[in-house]
C-alpha cells in the first residue's frame, strides 16, 4: 500500500465518563448562574475571565502537563472530553483555549525553566490569555514569507512590523509569535524565523481591532514599534522556527473544535422537527448524525494515537480537512431541512438566529489554523505525491 492510513477504533477509557459527568454538571451550574447562554453561539463575544478561573480551579486547564507546572498529568483523551463538552455547550472558552491547546505545550517544550515556572501555573489557573502571532499582511498560508523583524540588541531583540488576523490579541496577556531574525538562505527559504514569547499590553505594541462579517471584533492587527523582547523570551532555536512549527500541528488539527464549531444548528434542528419527522427531515438528520459520528470517531482515533506517542500528521490533517468542510456545510444543510419545519415549532426563532450566525461564521472555518488548500498539500505529501 502506498498510503497506510490508520484510524483504529479507539474508545475513551472509563475514567473519562466520570470526568464527562463532572464537566456537564459544572457547565449546567454555570448556565444556571447566567455565565453563558448555551443557545447563543456567538460565544467569542463573551469574554469571561471569571469563568476561565473557575475552569482552572477544576483542574481542567493544562490537564496533561507535569504537576510541577500546575498540570494534572492526565491523558490527552481526558482533555478531549473537557474540550468537546465545552464546545458543544457553547461555553465561553476564548480566554483559555489557545493557551491550553497550543501556547502551553510550546512553552513546555522550548521556554527556559524560570519562564515555565512563572507562566504555566497561571495558565492552569485560568489567569492568562494567549494569542498566536503568525500571519502578516503579506504572509498568510505562506508562513515563511513573514517579514516582521527581530533585530539583535543588548540583552534581547527589537521588534518592528505587523501581525494580522490575530485572534484575541486585544485581551491577550501574551503572544507566541514568529519574527524574522535572519534573511532566508538560497538553500532553505524557511530559514531565518525565530519563535518568541511576547508580553502584551506594553508600550511599543498597538492592537487595532478588525471587524468580521459576523459583526464580531474577534481578530486584530498588532503593530510592533521598537518593542523590546529579552533574550530569555526566545523559544527554541534562533532562525530555526521552521523545525518547531510542525510538530504540534497534529494536536491543533484534529481536536473536536475542528468539526463541532457549528454543531448547535443540528441540535436545534432536531428540536424543531419534533418526535415525528417527515421522511425528508429524518433522512437529512440521519445523514448528518452519521457524518458527525464518523468525524468524531476519526478525531478520537487521532487523539488516541497521539496519547500513544505516535505522530499521525497525515491523519490529523485529514480530520481537519473533512471536519472543517463538514462544519462549514452543516448550516446550509440544516437550512435546507429547516425550510420544512412547521411554523408552530417553538424554537423556530432560535434556530433562525443560529443559522444566521452559523452561515456567517462558516467561511472562516476552512481558513483559520491552516487552509483547506494547505492541508490537502500536506495530505498529498503524505500520500507520496510531492
Amino acid at each position: 500500500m502506498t498510503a497506510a492510513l490508520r484510524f483504529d477504533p479507539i474508545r475513551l477509557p472509563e475514567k473519562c465518563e466520570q470526568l464527562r459527568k463532572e464537566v456537564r454538571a459544572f457547565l449546567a451550574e454555570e448556565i444556571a448562574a447566567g455565565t453563558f447562554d448555551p443557545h447563543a453561539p456567538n460565544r467569542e463575544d463573551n469574554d469571561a475571565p471569571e469563568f476561565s478561573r473557575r475552569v482552572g480551579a477544576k483542574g481542567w486547564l493544562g490537564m496533561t502537563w507535569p504537576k510541577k507546572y500546575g498540570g494534572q498529568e492526565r491523558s490527552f483523551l481526558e482533555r478531549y472530553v473537557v474540550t468537546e463538552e465545552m464546545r458543544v455547550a457553547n461555553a465561553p472558552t476564548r480566554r483559555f483555549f489557545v493557551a491550553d491547546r497550543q501556547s502551553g505545550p510550546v512553552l513546555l517544550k522550548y521556554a527556559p525553566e524560570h519562564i515555565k515556572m512563572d507562566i504555566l501555573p497561571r495558565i492552569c489557573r485560568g489567569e492568562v490569555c494567549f494569542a498566536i502571532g503568525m500571519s502578516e499582511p503579506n504572509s498568510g498560508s505562506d508562513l515563511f514569507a513573514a517579514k516582521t523583524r527581530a533585530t539583535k540588541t543588548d540583552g534581547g531583540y527589537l521588534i518592528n512590523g505587523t501581525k494580522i488576523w490575530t485572534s484575541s490579541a486585544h485581551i491577550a496577556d501574551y503572544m507566541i509569535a514568529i519574527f524574522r531574525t535572519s534573511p532566508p538562505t538560497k538553500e532553505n527559504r524557511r530559514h531565518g524565523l525565530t519563535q518568541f514569547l511576547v508580553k502584551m499590553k506594553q508600550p511599543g505594541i498597538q492592537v487595532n481591532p478588525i471587524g468580521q462579517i459576523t459583526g464580531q471584533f474577534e481578530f486584530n492587527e498588532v503593530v510592533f514599534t521598537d518593542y523590546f523582547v529579552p533574550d530569555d523570551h526566545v523559544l527554541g532555536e534562533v532562525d530555526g522556527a521552521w523545525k518547531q512549527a510542525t510538530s504540534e500541528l497534529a494536536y491543533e488539527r484534529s481536536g473536536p473544535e475542528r468539526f463541532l464549531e457549528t454543531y448547535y444548528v443540528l441540535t436545534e434542528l432536531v428540536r424543531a422537527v419534533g418526535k415525528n419527522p417527515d421522511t425528508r427531515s429524518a433522512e437529512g438528520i440521519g445523514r448528518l448524525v452519521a457524518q458527525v459520528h464518523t468525524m468524531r470517531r476519526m478525531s478520537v482515533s487521532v487523539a488516541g494515537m497521539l496519547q500513544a506517542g505516535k505522530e499521525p500528521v497525515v491523519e490529523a490533517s485529514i480530520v481537519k480537512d473533512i471536519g472543517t468542510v463538514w462544519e462549514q456545510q452543516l448550516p446550509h444543510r440544516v437550512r435546507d431541512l429547516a425550510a420544512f419545519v412547521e411554523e408552530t415549532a417553538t424554537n423556530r426563532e432560535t434556530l433562525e438566529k443560529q443559522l444566521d450566525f452559523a452561515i456567517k461564521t462558516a467561511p472562516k472555518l476552512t481558513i483559520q489554523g491552516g487552509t483547506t488548500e494547505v492541508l490537502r498539500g500536506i495530505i498529498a505529501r503524505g500520500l507520496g505525491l510531492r
Partner: protein
Amino acid sequence: MVESENIVAETAEKIFADLADAQTINHDKHGAWKAPLWQALTEAGLPLSWVPDDLGGSGASLAEGFSVLNVAGRHAIAVPLAETMLAGWLLTQGKITSPEGEMTVLPAGPKDRVTVGADGSLSGRARGVPFAKDAKHFAVLASDNGGISIALVDAAKCRIESGVGLGGDHNDTVTLDKVQPVTTKSAPKGFDQTTLMLMGGVVRSLQIAGALESMLDISVRYSNERVAFEKKISKFQAVQHNLARLAGESAAALAAATSAADTIASATSFDNDAVFLEAASAKIRCSEAAEKGSSIAHQVHGAIGFTIEHILHRYSLRALAWRDDFGSESYWAVELGKLVAERGADELWPLVASR
C-alpha cells in the same frame, strides 16, 4: 485493520494475493480462478469463520472475521465469502449446523419478508440477493405470528431469477413457495430482521472501506506513472487535491466501518442505541464515501479507468453496488433520523459522545 495482530486476516490476505490477483482475474473471461480460490478459502476455514467448531465452522472471533472482510474488500473479492460468513453467522444464532459450500442470506433488504406457514414451510420473495445463483444453501430469516425463525434452505428448492448487479456479480431474486427448509429454529430473543440488516450493513461497510483503500492506492500509483503536459500528473495541484479528498473519504469509511465492527464485536446485544448508531452510520457514511471516492478514482485515471481492461472498475463498481445491500444509505438515514428525533434534541450529543 491490524493485520500483524490478526493471523486470520493475514491468512486471507495471503490467499487473495496468491489466487485473486486483480489483473489475472480481470483477464480471465471464463472465471477459472474461482474454484481454486474458493477451495483455498474453504481449506483455511474462512467462509465459516463465524461458526463455532461444534456447528461445523472454524470458530474465529467476530473481530477476526470483520478483519477478513476488510481485506476481502481491498481485493474486491467476487466469490460469496462475505455472504457465506454472514449466512454461517445467522445459522449460528439459531444453533443450526452450517453445511459445506457457498451460502447467502435472505432477505437481503429491509423491506422483503419471508414467512413461516402453519406446516413449517417458507414463503416469500427476496430481491437483490447477492450470489444466490452461486449458493448451495440459503440462511433465511423468517417471521411467523409474533415469532422470528432462522432456517437453512436448500437453494435447489427455490425459484431463482438470475440478475447481475452493478459490480458484475450475481444479484438475484429468490422466490420461496411453500419450501420445506432443511432445518428451522427459533431466533434468540430480540433477534429480528433489523439485527440481520445491521450486521449485513457492517459487513458491506468493511468491504466498501477496503475497496476505497485500494482505489486510493491504485490512483496514487497511477498518478505517479502517468505523464501529461511533460510531467507526472501527481505533480498537478488539482490532482493532488483530488487524491487528498479521496484519502479523506477512504479514511472516513475505514473509521466508520471499523468502529461499527468493533462495537458489534464487543456488544452483548444488538438491541441498543449504540449499536444502531454505529452500524447505521457506517453504512450511511461508507456508502457516501463510495460515491465520492469512486468518482475521484475514475477522474484521476481518465479514460483508461473506464475500460473493461483496467482493474479500477472491479473496486469502484463493487463499492457502489454494495451500497444497496442490507438497506441503502437512504434507508438507514431515515431510520437513524427517526431514532434521533424520537430520543429528542438533548439526547443527541450524549448518544454521539457515548461512542
